[in-house]
């Protein structure tokens, strides 16, 4: 029985180690983007190449000091608490909303006008279906963070 227990325990340990090894290899990507606008209630980013996530682009702008933001990683992705020093007022039902001109890309929808539209200089941005960590940067598309209410 001892040998069998050892065998099963080793099997599960091997699978767990294998899983950890592979998942740790899944790192982030670089994102090349231009910051078009940055204020207390509005951040507009345009992707220059198709690479990385909106979070990667924001991290790059944070490094260069062009924007500031606070938040935390959660199992649902990165949760933004403040951008450029502004924390949404919960008593007014405010939150940081993500909009993008990126609709469907490679057969996957990334935004839906059904949940809201934000017009930026004639470009119609729809409410994003993912947070900043799940939204891919695709060349030429706009990504907007703005204060919204529910």
């Amino acid at each position, binding site marked *: 029985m001892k040998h069998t227990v050892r*065998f099963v325990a080793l099997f599960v340990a091997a699978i767990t180690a294998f899983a950890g090894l592979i998942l740790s290899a899944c790192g982030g990507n670089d994102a090349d983007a231009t910051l078009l606008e940055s204020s207390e209630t509005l951040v507009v980013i345009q992707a220059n190449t198709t690479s990385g996530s909106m979070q990667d682009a924001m991290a790059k702008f944070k490094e260069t000091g062009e924007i500031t933001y606070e938040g935390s990683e959660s*199992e649902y992705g990165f949760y933004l608490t403040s951008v450029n020093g502004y924390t949404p007022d919960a008593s007014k039902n405010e939150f940081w909303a993500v909009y993008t001109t990126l609709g469907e890309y490679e057969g996957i929808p990334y935004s839906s006008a059904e949940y809201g539209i934000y017009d930026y200089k004639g470009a119609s941005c729809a409410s994003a279906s993912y947070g900043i960590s799940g*939204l891919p940067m695709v060349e030429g598309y706009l990504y907007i963070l703005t204060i919204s209410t529910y």
Partner: protein
Amino acid sequence: MNAKKIAVCAVMVALLIAVQFTLSFVSGVELVTVLLLCFCYTFGVACGMLVATAFSLIRCLLFGFMPNVVLLYLIYYNLFALLFGSLRKHKLPVWVCPILLALLAGGSAYFAIAGIPISILYQNKIRIMFWILFGIAAALLLSYIVLIVCHKKSKELASVTALAAFCTVLFTLLDDVISPLILGYGMEAALAYFYTSFLAMLPQTICASVSVFLLFHPIKHVLSKIRL
């Protein structure tokens, strides 16, 4: 149902809530499965379902009242109690667990190859996770066969371990149906919810398998000392 049974059930509910609360700070680790499994297996369906229902409702005092979670817990843990509570009297045919594990492995391999329509940023990770789930199911299947062949007396342990792993996966899949329906998610949001719940499911499945495999006999032994 006499007073002693009710008292034992009440203590078990308190224990389950304490264990769940304590381990809620450690991601992916849970012992509710092995504790409730052993309890249902020892005391049967009626006590198991009483504990499952009380646990599902009373834990809201600590974790908050979320209708989707309450409904999920009430459905899942009562079915769980029904399954493991009846296992002692009605032994499963030896082919049931291998088939369930083979189904799990096959389904995981299918989705790992075919993929699911989710953000491209998540696709590689989710494929890898499906392959890992395939590996876990295959490892459990192989372990089941080894246990059955080498130690015929271990059929009980092999069965409950395999079923615990299968049930843990079902818990997440049930959550992926109930929560988006109750919270009114669209298709994209439901897929994003599936992705995030999948991240938590893998360590929980491993934890459930290992904890049931190692603790089933000791806990069952302790519980069987209680005379009702």
